[in-house]
C-alpha cells in the first residue's frame, strides 16, 4: 500500500549567528512498506524519529531525500492539489485527541469537517457517514451534539478514530494512539482498532514505544534508534527474542514495568 524508500530527513542546525553546522539527521535512510490489511509497527523512544516518519508517511513533511510510494505511485514531489485522493485514503489518528479536536465544535461538525473540506457531498450523505462512523467506534448516535470537553479521554480518542474513518480510508497512521490513556481504556481502544481493521481490511502504521502493546497490535515491528532502523522482523520474534542490543534494552525496560515479568 505505502512504501517509504531510503527516507532521510535532516534539519539545518542554526548557530547563534546563522552559521550552520552539520545538519541534524532525525531520520537516516529508513525503508519499510505497509502491506494491505496488515499492521506495521514503528517502535522507538522520544527522539527516535518515529513521529517525523509518521508525518512523512502522511505527506505532511517532505523528506530531505528518499521516495514515498502510495499504491505504486511516487507521490514524493506531488503538489497538494494532486494529493487529494491520497489525503482521503491515508488518515492519521494522533495521541492526543483532545489537542486535535476544536473545543468549540460539536461532534457532528468535527466528524463531517473532512467531508466538507473535500466538498461535493450532499448534506444527507454526510449525515449518513457521521452516523456510520459513530457506529464504527461504538458510540451512541446522540453523541453528535456533544462538545469535546464533555467526553472522557477514551471517548475523545474514539471520536479521533471516527474522524479518521469518515473519508473511508484504506490506511490509518496511528501515532501513539493509546499512550495517553488509562490501561483499562487502552485495552478497549486497541480491541476497537483491531475490529475496525478486520471489518474494513485497513492497513495500519502503528507508532509507539510500548513493546507489549506493539506485540498485540502488529504483524511486523521495526525498532528505531536515533533515526535509524536497528532491527525489524515479525512481532513475535522481535519481542520474543531480539538480536539487537538496543531492542534488548527496550525489552528489559518493558519487563521492569511488566507486572508478571
Amino acid at each position: 500500500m505505502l512504501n517509504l524508500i531510503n527516507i532521510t530527513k535532516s534539519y539545518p542546525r542554526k548557530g547563534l549567528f546563522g552559521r550552520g553546522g552539520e545538519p541534524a539527521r532525525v531520520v537516516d535512510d529508513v525503508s519499510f512498506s505497509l502491506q494491505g490489511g496488515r499492521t506495521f509497527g514503528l517502535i522507538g523512544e522520544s527522539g527516535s524519529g518515529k513521529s517525523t516518519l509518521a508525518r512523512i508517511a502522511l505527506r505532511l513533511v517532505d523528506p530531505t531525500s528518499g521516495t514515498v510510494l502510495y499504491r505504486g505511485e511516487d507521490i514524493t514531489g506531488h503538489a497538494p492539489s494532486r494529493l487529494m485522493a491520497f489525503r482521503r485514503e491515508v488518515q492519521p489518528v494522533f495521541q492526543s485527541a483532545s489537542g486535535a479536536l476544536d473545543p468549540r465544535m460539536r461532534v457532528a461538525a468535527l466528524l463531517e469537517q473532512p467531508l466538507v473540506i473535500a466538498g461535493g457531498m450532499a448534506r444527507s450523505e454526510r449525515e449518513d457517514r457521521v452516523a456510520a462512523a459513530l457506529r464504527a467506534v461504538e458510540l451512541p448516535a446522540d453523541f453528535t451534539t456533544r462538545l469535546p470537553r464533555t467526553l472522557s479521554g477514551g471517548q475523545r480518542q474514539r471520536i479521533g478514530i471516527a474522524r479518521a474513518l469518515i473519508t473511508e480510508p484504506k490506511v490509518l497512521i496511528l501515532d501513539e494512539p493509546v499512550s495517553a490513556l488509562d490501561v483499562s481504556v487502552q485495552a478497549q481502544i486497541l480491541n476497537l482498532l483491531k475490529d475496525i481493521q478486520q471489518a474494513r481490511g485497513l492497513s495500519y502504521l502503528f507508532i509507539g514505544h510500548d513493546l507489549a502493546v506493539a506485540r498485540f497490535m502488529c504483524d511486523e515491528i521495526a525498532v528505531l534508534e536515533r533515526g535509524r532502523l536497528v532491527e525489524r522482523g515479525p512481532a513475535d520474534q522481535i519481542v520474543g527474542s531480539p538480536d539487537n542490543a538496543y531492542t534488548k534494552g527496550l525489552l528489559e525496560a518493558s519487563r521492569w514495568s511488566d507486572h508478571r515479568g
Partner: protein
Amino acid sequence: MTGSLLEIERLSVSFGGLRVLDDIDLKLAPGDRLGLVGESGSGKSTLGLAILGLLVDTASVSGTIRFAGAALPIGDDRAMSAIRGGRIGFVYQDPMGGFSPIHTVGRHMHHAIAAAEPDISRRAARERAAALLAEVEIRDSAARLDDYPHQFSGGMLQRIMIASALAGNPQLLIADEPTTALDATTQANVLRLLDRIASARGMAVILITHDLGVVGRFCGDLAVLYCGNLVSLTTVARAMANPVHPYTRGLLDARPRLDEKPARLRTIGGVLPRAGAAGGGCAFEPRCALGRGVAICRNERPLLLANRSGDRVACHLAGAESEVAASC
C-alpha cells in the same frame, strides 16, 4: 502496614456535594512503599493532594490524617506548607511544567532548600543543591546548577524534581504518576533510582499511578481505588499472583503482555461512573464480571473486610472468586 508514620482515618472529600473520596482508612509505616492505583477519576490524585494539604478551598474534608504522631494541620496553610516540602515531599507527572524556564536549576533547588531550611547560607545551600543533584545521578552536578531546564532531558528533569523534593529530608514522598510521561527505558531508570534513594534514606513512598505494572517491582503494598472507595488493600505480590477483587483482576488482565498475543485484550466493560453517582450498592457492580446483576452487589455497599491472608477487600463475592480460581 502497621501504621505510625501516616494514619488516615475516615477521610472523605467532597466538591460541591459530590463525594470524590469516601471514608478512606489507610496506614503507612516508615519506609513502606504503597502503590495507589485507579483509573482517571478514581480519586487517587485527590487523596495525594489531601495528604499534602493542597486541596482547593471549595473542597469539604472530614476525617483525620495523622503524620508522625500528630494530626496534620489541614486548613492551616502556613503550617501545612512547612510540612510539605519538608517532612513530606511531592513529585508529579509533568517535569517540564514543574520548572520555570527562566530560572536556572540551581535557583529552583535553592528555593526548595531555603523553604526547608530558611537560615541556610547561600554557599551551604549551593553545596547542598549539588549534593542532591549528585544523589539523583546528575553528572557534573555543581556545574549543572547554572544550566536552565531546557538544557536537560525529560528524564533528567524528573530526577531533578525528585532532588528538590528531597531537600527537606522527607520521611514520606508522594509521587503522582512520576513516570507516565516518560519512555519505557527512562521510566525504568527513574523507578530504579527512586528505589535506591528510598531504600538508602528509609523514606516511605506513595506511588500514585493508573498502571499496575509500574507498581509491580517498586511497591510492597497496593491500594486500589474505585470511584472514591478503597476497594482493595493487599500486598503487591498477592495482588499480582491472585487478585481477589474483580476490579484489580480487570486492571491486570487489561494490560497487554510481552509473553503472549491474545486475539483480543480482556477489558472492563463500561466506564467509570461520575463521582457520587453510585447508588446504595457496590460502585463497581454495573461493570463487574462477577457481580453484575447480583442482588446483594446491586443493593448493599460492600465493606472493606480482612480475609484469611490478612488482605482487606471490599467485595461481596471476593471469597467466591478465590474458590473459582483455586479450582482452575
